[in-house]
Structures are given as C-alpha cells and as structure tokens.
C-alpha cells in the first residue's frame, strides 16, 4: 500500500518540477544574468558575481534612466489620451441602447486582429509624411490605438456594473446629468477605470513594434534599449532592463486583484 503511494508521487513530482522549471527557469536565468560579471559556455553558473553592470545602467552616461523617463512619459500620456476617449465611449456603450453595440466593441479589436508589422510599417510611412515620425506624439498615438481596446472594453464593463437606479436616484433629487455622472457613476466605476488605466500603462511600457517603427531612433523607450542591448550580445544590460520592466507588471497584478471586482470582470466584452 505505502509502496504504491510512493510510486505515485514520482511522476507527480516530475511534472510539477517540469512546470516550475518552465515558469521559473528563464526568470532565474534572467536574474542570474543581472548579477553575472563573467559567464560563458560551458559553465552552468556565472564565474563571477557583482553589480558593476547595474552601475553602468544607472550611471549618468548610461541611457537606461533617460529611456525609463521617456517610457514613463509616453505611457502616462497614452493613459491620459486613452481614458479621455474611453470614459465617454465606455459610458455610451454601457448605457445607451446603441445598435450594433457588439460590433462597435469588436471594432476596437481590429488593431489587434491584424499582424502588427504591416500595420505599423504603414503608420510609420504615413507619420513620416506628416512629420510625426520620431516624435513623442507619434509614439503616443500608436500606443493609444493599441491600448484603446482594453480601455474601452474595461470602461464599458465598469460603467455597466453601476446600476442605472443609482444614477436616476441622483437625477430625481436634483442633480443634472453631468453632476450625477461626476458624483455617482464616476466614483463607482473608478476601480474599473483604474484597472483599465494600469492595463494601458503597462501595454504602452512593453510595446515594442510600434515604438520601433515610429519612434526609433529619436524616441528611445526601454524596450528599444532592451532590444539594442540584447542584439548587441550585452546580456547583463538587457537583463537588468528586463527586470526594470517587470516591476510595474507585478505591481499591476496586485492592484488588479485588489480593485477589479468579479461583477466588473463578468461584464467585459458584453
């Protein structure tokens, strides 16, 4: 009896170990690279450890910090523009009985449906003609088209989760439509909107293809830096940059778990 039990644990342990390796293997490798001073084939582990590459990344001469600043600026502007568009759009889609509501929501998916590369190449060509290539504005616009789908879908769900009665209760005791929206609907939808903002922020922070075609080499974002470092065989710099990009993602996961309630999530895409 006990012997059979032991035998059963073996395949389970192997499968679990394999899954853990698939998930954490590359991450471990990445973390190791950030602190490796010297590491080459055929050694399993780095030969020397140290933080000299961190110094290089964060030194005034390294362009990691300026790239980070550019990335954050672009991401913030993208969030701003997306929300300005998504709040009225999401509210209208959730409240008004618009015909083709589903189709309108699907339309926001179109930028995701096509292969990125040809789309961005064309955008780049067009932006070049009107002088938007290589500008922050250009990159922000590209990121907005990309992020709007999340922004609108989640905003629609967030507004749909706010009961119409709550709004009408405010209207009935003297609040105008804008006032009722400001005092009742917006605060109640805020957690969902915050989640959509964070989604868009992270999408922008991670976005590579569009930034590459529209922004490079004048606008240098963190993923572009990562690409250059990686392509140049500079794994330490690339890994440290990647680790920097990981921080907001993990923070986001925690926030989403805290703020996105089930009733909002269940209305995404409806």
């Amino acid at each position, binding site marked *: 009896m006990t012997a059979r039990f032991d035998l059963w644990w073996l395949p389970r342990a192997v499968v679990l170990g394999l899954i853990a390796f698939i998930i954490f293997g590359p991450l471990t490798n990445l973390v190791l690279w950030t602190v490796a001073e010297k590491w080459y084939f055929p050694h399993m582990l780095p030969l020397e450890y140290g933080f000299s590459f961190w110094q290089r990344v964060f030194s005034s001469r390294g362009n990691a910090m300026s790239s980070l600043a550019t990335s954050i600026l672009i991401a913030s502007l993208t969030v701003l523009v997306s929300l300005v568009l998504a709040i009225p759009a999401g509210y209208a889609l959730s409240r008004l009985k618009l015909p083709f509501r589903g189709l309108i929501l699907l339309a926001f998916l179109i930028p995701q449906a096509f292969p990125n590369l040809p789309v961005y190449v064309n955008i780049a060509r067009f932006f070049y003609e009107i002088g938007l290539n290589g500008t922050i504005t250009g990159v922000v616009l590209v990121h907005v088209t990309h992020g709007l789908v999340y922004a609108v879908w989640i905003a629609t769900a967030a507004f749909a989760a706010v009961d119409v009665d709550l709004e*009408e209760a405010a*209207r*009935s*005791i003297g609040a105008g439509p804008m006032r009722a929206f400001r005092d009742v609907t917006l605060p*109640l939808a805020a957690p969902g909107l915050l989640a959509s903002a964070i989604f868009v922020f992270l999408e922008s922070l991670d976005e590579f293809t569009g930034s590459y075609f529209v922004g490079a080499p004048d606008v240098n974002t963190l993923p572009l830096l990562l690409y250059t470092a990686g392509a140049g065989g500079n794994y330490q710099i690339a890994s440290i940059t990647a680790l920097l990009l990981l921080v907001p993602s993990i923070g986001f996961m925690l926030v989403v778990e805290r703020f996105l309630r089930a009733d909002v999530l269940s209305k995404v895409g409806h």
Partner: protein
Amino acid sequence: MTRQAFLKVENLSVGYGGTTVLTDLDLSIGKGEFVALLGSSGCGKTTLLRTIAGFAKPSAGAVSVAGRDVTQLPPDKRGMALVFQSYALWPHMTVAQNIGYGLKLQGRSRGEIEKRVTEMQALLGLGGLGSRKPGQLSGGQRQRVALGRALAIDPEILLLDEPLSNLDARIRLTVRHEIRSLQKRLGITAIHVTHDREEAMVMADRIVIMNAGRIEQQGTPEDVYNRPASPFVAAFMGAENLLTMQARVSGEHIELMESAMSPPTVTGRGGRDVTSGPVELRFRAEAASLVRNGEKTTPAAGALELRGQVASVTYPGGHWRHAVHLGNQEILVDADRPFDQGETVKVHVPESSLFIFNA
C-alpha cells in the same frame, strides 16, 4: 379632500419601441393627497410613475404640476423625489452623505445640511447611523435612508416605486403606517405604486386601479372595495368567487332567474349599470355565510341563496374556509365554525356584497 388638481396627467400615452404601455390616460391628484397606483405587474403603473418623474418620455399627452407644464423638463427640474424599489442608495457615501446629497446640490451651507440631516435621521429613527455605509444597514434601515434622502429636499411630490416590496412581511406592516403618518404630518403629495391590495388600502386616500395601461377605477379604499366598477376590479379586490346567471332588470330591481343551484332571487340594483341577459356574479369568501341545509333560516331581503355541498374544509386562521361545490362549479365560503365534508349546505350572499356585471 381638496380635489383641486395639483398634479395633472392628461391624455398620456407612453410606449417603448413598438409596444404602447399607457394609452390616453388622465389622472389628477390634489395637493397633500396620498394616491396609490394599484395593479398587477405589467399593467403600466411603474411606467406611469416614471413618466411623472421624468424618466420615461411620453409619446403624447402632458404632465403638469400646479398649472406648470413639466412634460419636457428633465427629472432634476421637476421638484419631485423618487424612492426606488431597490432603494438605490449610493454605496460609496455614508448614510448622512446619502441623505444630505440633495441639499448639497441646492447649495446649502454645511451647517444647514448637517442640521437637516440630523433632523431627518431623528424623524426616521436612524439616529447614530450617520457614519455607516448602506452596506452595513438592514433592509428596513436602508428603506428609511432612501425615504430620508427623498424627503430631505422637501419635494413637492413624493414618488414611491414599490418601496416596501423588498422588506420582510412583518417590517412591512409597520413601515406602511410610518410612511402614511409621515406623509400626513408633512402634508406632502405622494404617489405610491404597489401590487399589494392591502398596502394600498391601508396607506392611500385614493386608490387608482390600473389594468393593461388604463385606469379601471379610482376612488377611496371603501369605494373600490365595496363598489367595484368592473369584474376586473372586483376580482382584484378579492371577490374571487364567480358565478354566471341569467338576469332580468326591471326598474330598481334585478331578478336573478332560477337555476339548478338557486331559487329565483330579486335583489336591488343599487345604481348598478346592468342590463337584462347573462350576468357575472362576484363575491368574497368572507362576505358569504353558510347555513346547514335543514336549518330554517330565511335569507335577508335581496340576498342570494345557493345550494351546494362542502367539498373541503381548511383553517387559514380566524375562521374556517370551505370549498363548496355548486353543480360543477366551486366557490369558497368562510364560516365561524367548520362544516363537515360532504354536508349539504346553503350559502347566503347579502345584497351589498354581491357584485353583478353583464357577462
């Protein structure tokens, strides 16, 4: 009762999409009057209330308050306050903020708002709950907050959309009287939508019974209870026993023809609009009385006598309820004492409790 119209609804028609919910409806309500809109679900009573409040747009007709046409005004400019069935309290605000919101909109000073909110809380028995969020309150307390929020702004007209239907049956009974006495004390004009007959009877000065988008009858509770104008109203007000007979009308008398279950009966017409021919008789179980077959009692003048057999006896409390077979029909009759199952009995229905309509 001053019947000078304060709120006036004229030729109102409302529809959603292709379906019309209300057709050509007229209603006028006096100042300080408590009117109940009574009807089963889907009869248009909530739509009427929402149209008066300004949340539904009429396709034709007008709504006016004190002579002022408000048909085109948005809900926030009508000087009314609506209490929702779901209460619709704002979960992100405290009780005090909920109640004080309307005053804040009016631009009152903070001290004034605080004073009024404390007043409302005291009035509604919500003292000490001001800093709670709605989620921390019981159903009855939430209902009071919703009422307080509406009353705080001193509305000209208070609209109540089935505000009691989400409460426990026991709490509901006390809240009925609370709302009624509050309305009387404040002298406020109120329209109360409900599907509960007893609730409407207990609370309202006037009951408006609606059916399929029209007003079937309106009048005082005694009026609609004792003088239903149509079979629908009679049935809705509890006269569920239904018999069909032949009648001959002559002057102020109605002669009901002899049938297998009853001898010929002459009863007063009592101002009823009935013509000779087949008629529909309706009466309440508690209005009729049972008499043992052999017993020598003559029914009162104008009363209808029916012969039948007790099919079953139940005790719903206070009295015994008998299902009595009359040929192949069955009626329900209450009595103070139980009769045996299978016993042959006579059923007496007094003239005043007999509702006769042309079939």
